[in-house]
């Protein structure tokens, strides 16, 4: 809950002090891919909220789990009801610091973002390699990482356990614009 409040109030609080140094996207894209022997599982979420704070050199994400779109309705149902339990854990969050970040460097820089990822109420440290591009006063951050499903206690029925990969690949693409309240 504290993390959620942080995400809600960070832009507001920072907005009063240094409005030019924070960037926001409400339409960040996160996709995940999991290999399964029967059929690969893929879903996309284009409504991810993210704040990039240049002063703090930090990034924060808030992901609404029900906003992941699947092609097959049964996969979507299983994802929300059985695996993620979206009613109980509606959001995933990430807060991290961009290491050795040069905020106003024009062009692309590849950096590590070190932080905490919370999914299903479980928080684990995560270090992600990302490309950060700055041009025309917008930032684009792209990259990918993998997470281990057992770290977040995602329950896979025993009958399917051998057919579903133990890791999930997560890709992201965020296009930030200056946040002006």
């Amino acid at each position, binding site marked *: 809950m504290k993390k959620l409040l942080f995400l809600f109030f960070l832009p*507001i609080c920072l907005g009063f002090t240094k409005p030019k140094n924070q960037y926001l996207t409400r*339409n960040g894209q996160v996709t995940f891919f999991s290999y399964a022997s029967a059929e690969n599982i893929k879903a996309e979420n284009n*409504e991810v909220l993210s704040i990039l704070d240049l002063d703090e050199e930090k990034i924060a994400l808030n992901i*609404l789990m*029900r*906003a992941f779109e699947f092609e*097959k309705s049964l996969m979507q149902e299983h994802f929300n009801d059985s695996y993620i339990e979206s009613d109980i854990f*509606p*959001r995933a969050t990430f807060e991290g610091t961009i290491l050795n970040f040069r905020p106003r460097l024009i062009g692309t820089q590849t950096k590590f973002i070190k932080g905490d990822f919370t999914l299903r109420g479980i928080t684990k440290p995560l270090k992600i390699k990302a490309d950060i591009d700055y041009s025309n006063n917008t930032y684009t951050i792209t990259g990918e990482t993998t997470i281990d499903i057992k770290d977040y206690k995602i329950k896979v029925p025993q009958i399917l356990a051998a057919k579903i990969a133990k890791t999930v690949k997560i890709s992201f693409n965020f296009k930030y614009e200056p946040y002006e309240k």
Partner: protein
Amino acid sequence: MIISASIIIGGILFFNYLNKNVPKTQSIESIEVFSAENITTDAEGLKKYDRYIEEAINIKGKLKEIKKDKEKHTLILSSKNETVTIICKMQKDQIKKINNLQIGKTITIKGIYKGYLIDMILLNCIII
């Protein structure tokens, strides 16, 4: 013979069940109609709409912005509270209608409510 036929029919039905696509919003009945102008709350107050999660709802409101990313279109409607918008990710078959929209005009969309972050989020939206 009857057993074989039953197995085949059962197999087909099960296969269809497993491979059923997400239904089009046109085929789902809306359970509530809202006016965006009456959504006055801040993000914290959006919790009261949780009972509509995964339901189809209609929202009438002023079109603030149209976002396009490849074939994906998102409409943003304004609410009474400036910090809260209604984000409507559009169904793919709505492109023609979207091309005729004008910013500032009042439109009604139907979509599946998914919850909120600092905005209300609806997916599979159609213009009605």
